[in-house]
């Protein structure tokens, strides 16, 4: 691997080779990861690095990072309500803090702080419950008055005459954003250096099981590949892939939209989220305002959403930040998010031997990427979950042990 550093950039003057190879698929691998998003690539990286597995392939039907990894609003935080969740997401935040060094790839993790606005008495109760729960679990989260929130984020409007006044906000200072594409590329480069084959334009079209029902191979658009272990990390397409093994999932896939403004000089120092009126906003290092919109009401694989969903979000943005009303939307896009009934992910063994699934991150899995890859690799390698992901099974939907973050916060960015 060509090492990246400022010095190397100066010396090489652009004489760089490929960041990863473009290998032909081999006939067999020890493990196959379906899906070359951040989670899939991170899983492959950890399988290779931590578990000494060398023959690993990541199969990506399009281009790596082209799924939700490449289309999210990059909000990273760990101030979730339930202990299981905050442990899971904080595991990831800790890894984010070292990720550029781990990968030797600058993923631009920016701990600029995430403010979650409370607009009603009920919001205040809910967020204060989060603050208390997080503090007990060692996760930073603090309560700000409306005035303190405005000081932290000057463009925020907090006047009393608003339709939904700002009553205060929960602030996680360690939270922030990262450069989404770099996460996929950084993991790909690091995994490739450990010998992982990253195979793009290779869609998995079937999962072959042996007489005993165990996974034996995958069918792909580039031929059949034998493997005893298949890890499905296909986000919005999980139901489709799992159906290939005859497994029905507790998932629905919805279009989720985001948009950016034209780039402007820095005006927005942090990340602001309002679950009550559906506004999620930060400013990228290039200058665009990055804004998250909602999901459409119906399941869809169209990777775009309806106009009224974006307009609804911009109404909220203009209400909270009336200075931005003359700003202009530059580009809007959609992703396909796979949503579980309790809005918490599944990182688990599937009910088929040799089949593992990491899905259900819905509107909020980018933040979990480094942790998720680590835990899923563990689960695949040892054939049993790591204690952190042990609660995130498929069976919880049979037994009723839900981890219902949805009940506490409408959306989980």
């Amino acid at each position, binding site marked *: 691997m060509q090492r990246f550093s400022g010095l190397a950039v100066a010396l090489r003057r652009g004489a760089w080779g490929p960041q990863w190879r473009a290998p032909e698929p081999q006939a067999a691998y020890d493990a196959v990861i379906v899906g070359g998003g951040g989670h899939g690539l991170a899983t492959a990286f950890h399988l290779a690095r931590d578990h000494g597995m060398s023959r690993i392939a990541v199969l990506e039907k399009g281009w790596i990072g082209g799924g939700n990894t490449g289309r999210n609003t990059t909000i990273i935080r760990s101030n979730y309500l339930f202990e299981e969740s905050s442990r899971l997401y904080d595991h990831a935040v800790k890894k984010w803090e070292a990720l550029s060094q781990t990968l030797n790839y600058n993923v631009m993790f920016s701990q600029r702080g995430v403010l979650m606005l409370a607009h009603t008495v009920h919001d205040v109760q809910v967020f204060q419950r989060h603050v208390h729960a997080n503090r007990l679990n060692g996760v930073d989260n603090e309560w700000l008055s409306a005035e303190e929130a405005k000081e932290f984020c000057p463009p925020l409007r907090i006047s009393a005459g608003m339709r939904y006044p700002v009553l205060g906000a929960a602030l996680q200072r360690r939270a922030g954003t990262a450069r989404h594409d770099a996460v996929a590329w950084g993991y790909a480069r690091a995994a490739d250096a450990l010998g992982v084959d990253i195979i793009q334009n290779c869609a998995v079209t079937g999962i072959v099981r042996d007489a005993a029902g165990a996974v034996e191979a995958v069918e792909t658009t580039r031929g059949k590949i034998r493997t005893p272990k298949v890890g499905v990390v296909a986000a919005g397409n999980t139901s489709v892939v799992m159906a290939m093994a005859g497994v029905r999932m507790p998932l629905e896939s919805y279009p989720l939209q985001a948009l950016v403004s034209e780039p402007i000089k820095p005006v927005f120092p942090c990340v602001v989220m309002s679950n009550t009126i559906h506004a999620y906003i930060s400013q990228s290092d290039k200058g665009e305002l990055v804004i998250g919109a909602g999901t459409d009401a119906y399941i869809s694989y169209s990777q775009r959403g309806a106009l009224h969903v974006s307009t609804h979000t911009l109404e909220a943005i203009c209400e909270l930040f009336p200075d931005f009303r*003359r700003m202009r939307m530059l580009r*809007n896009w959609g992703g396909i998010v796979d949503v579980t009934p309790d809005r918490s992910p599944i990182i688990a063994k599937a009910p088929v031997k040799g089949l593992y699934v990491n899905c259900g991150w819905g509107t909020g899995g980018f933040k979990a990427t480094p942790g998720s890859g680590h835990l899923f690799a563990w689960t695949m390698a040892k054939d049993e979950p790591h204690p952190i992901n042990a609660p995130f099974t498929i069976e919880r939907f049979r037994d009723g042990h839900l981890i219902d973050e949805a009940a506490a916060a409408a959306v989980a960015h």
Partner: protein
Amino acid sequence: MSGAFRVAEGGRVDRARPVRFSFDGRAYTGLAGDTLASALIANGVHLVGRSFKYHRPRGFLAAGSEEPNALVRVGAGTARATPNLRATQVEVYEGLVAESQNRSPSLAFDLGAINDLAAPFLSAGFYYKTFMWPSWGWKRIYEPLIRRAAGLGRAPEAPDPDCYAQRYVHCDVLVVGAGPAGLSAALAAAEAGARVIICDEQAELGGSLLDETPGSAHAAWLARTLVALAQAGVRMLPRTTAFGMFAQNFVALAERVTEHLAAPDPRQPRERLWQVRARQVVLAAGAIERPLIFPGNDRPGVMLAGAARTYLRRYGVRPGARALVVTSSDEGYRSAIDLAQGGVDVAAIADLRAQPAAALADAARAAGLTVLPGSEIEGTSGRLRVRGARVRRATGGSAEIACDLVLMAGGRTPSVHLFSQSARKLSFDEATGAFVPDDAGGAIHPAGACRGVMEIDAVLRDGAQAGALAAQRAHLPTSAEVLRTVAATAEVTAVPARKPHARGRAFVDFQNDVTTKDIALAVREGFVSVEHVKRYTTVGMATDQGKTSNINALGLMAEARDTAIPQVGHTTFRMPYTPVSFGTLAGAARGNLFDPVRQTPIHAWAEAQGAVFEDVSLWKRARYFPERSETMHQAVARECLGVRAGVGVFDASTLGKIEVVGPDAAVFLERMYVNPFRKLGVGRTRYGVLLREDGFILDDGVIGRIAADRFHVTTTTGGAPRVLAMMEDYLQTEFSDLRVWLTSTTEEWAVIAVQGPKAREVIAPLVEGIDISPAALPHMSVREGRICGVKGRLFRVSFTGELGFELNVPADDAQMVWDAVWARGQDAGMVAYGTETMHVLRAEKGFIIVGQETDGTVTPDDVGLGWAVGAAKPDFVGKRSLARAAMKDPARKQLVGLLTQAPARVLEEGAQIVADASAGRRSLGHVTSAYFSACLGHSVALAMVSGGRARMGESLLVPMPGGDVTVRVVAPVFYDPAGERVNG
């Protein structure tokens, strides 16, 4: 005089109306009809911006919405100044103030240009490779630096004072683009009787016809056609960009209504969003000229040839004195000849092709122009404006040609943006060297240049056929089957860019400073997919979204990968076509139009009393009624004591109400709620708990049986729509055997709760026809009768633990009844109380609030409502789920009361509960409600605690930032545990 470069006559500007404006503080004069770009060019100004990354000086590339360079901030003051507007689209008006961007201290001398010197280190993706050492460096040094360099313009710094409007509209045929193709389509469709809308992003309809000399046949056709369209009732929308195309021909248009006016009518919206549902759409969006790739192709004075022609013919300005025309297409010749005729000295036509069409070359030579076939441009010179270009001849040797204008004619790229947004396929057309719409079927009809038809008469025919076909497909009677017979004529031949041989930086994406080298580097580093190259180099990601750069970038990628453009593919076209203001998309939704504000019939009274309100779903509810300078706690304490000691009145009108009527009403409720309802007597009420099918509490409320076949069901305020929707769902799809109908009566009845030991004496004189004695109207009963003379329903219920009544009266009569109650109550010391007091009173009694004690993870048993569950019922919604393993776990959280050691200490709602002081201790639960109880003289709290009912009497800890607070677990009823006061 409106500038030294204004030609004596011609163009569509109004020479009788000079317009004064300023740019970077200097005053200039233009003419009505000018864009800011044409007015500046008329004044000889070409340096108008700095590029994003290298801060290179930039001028005008184009004359329309595809402009990548000339972005300016327009408008005076902090609130209205708008960044990143294209000078080529901004119409000048008297007093317009414009400013250049992304430079400091000035446009001519910009310190940021130092980046240009560092360019070798700033190649594509350099930041992923650097800034990682030392590990704290990113956060403390590099990121702040990078962030400071971000962005182009400055955001407005005060709230936008303007307003925006929106409109839905339907039509048979929507025509996008009003060039010759669009206009002839609109005319044909209108003649067939269709309801037609035609829009164009430009200030005038006409498209490329606006460049025609006045008096020419085509100019005359334009004038005639506009009149005919108006007469046919076609809705014509200039300054209106079709920016988004969605499924089923749903098209979003943004109209700039007042932006071009010096003194707009303040009632007019600044912009308007049109949401069009069109049966058929004709896309006649034209084509965009391509730049050529050569070193120094970004210097001010390097311009698209077609744009130069537009400046000359439409605006009457000469974009320069001496031009070198560089072309890889036939079109460069036409532009060169036209410009020469318009008084521009054309130094030469440098054709990159070895063998230009002989006829064209001859025509150019006949016009006195020099043609240099097989040329290559090795570079341009000049600092803030082009001074000359080096041309290498096919015959060998290169020469410096002095010029202040380099015009590029790289062929035209059909504008397929909207077609592709509609999720339709494009195919690569070798002749035009561009992607064109794949089919002309369905309900979307590309026409004219946007499908590669370039020759004007063919365009007119193509448009007319598209319009007629669209009308026919919209089911309008047309005499004969309409056919599309015009073939995509590649009038010009052009190939997308190849890498130049000459050294030096050649720009592909002008705004984002992406060079040919960046693209080559990306491919070399393994970013092979077109989408990867886009993201690694940012080509096509600037505010112009690659309108002029994308196709050239594809050519370069194909070359680097040694393949062809169709194998490279193209990036995804997304809305908006050009940027759209947030305000336009948000429309009128601000303040009280952001979301409806629902108020009860008593609201005005409460407001007059000085009530403080809180938001609960869309409702405003009175939270407390402070007297004089009371704090909330003081007011609440007074209100609580007033209710317990005497009587209080509370506006409960926001409670959801559903009238459940029909012979099977009781059976229906029995299946929906956990409680039994069949045997509930007429005139009796019951507290009902509603679960989701997964067994968790969704809602609760009191349900009264008004008649054998009629129930009055109440829900929580926020839950009303949800509960009704869920009931309809079960009724219509699962229990459709039942003869029951549901009607929302939330707003029919206002609800006045009168609570307290003196409640009966207060209401007694107001009630007619109902015996309200304890025996006749026991707790949990309901009667119909007259209250203050109007038909009402009187419930005897209590959410306070006191003797209580809820007067349901018609909403129109509510204030009258309230006034009567209030007047009667004065002798009894009546207080008006709000939701906060209501919360305290019910907490003292241990009554839950759905959403506060419950959070979607709570079963009836968890909150001590196991008694309500009709265990004998074979089924109800959620019953089966209660039998799952997790629901029987003894460690489930259960509702308990908590008492603090220090009586005055009020716990924080949401605070966590632990068993001990050890490190790593785990949460046992949390405080759901906590108040100071003025009646009891100490604080009370409700909490959900793991295995809580088995912990009665235990001491637990509540960790707080200042230290743990010790609490004792008690039963969740603090006041009147025997429940005798309701009988009062």
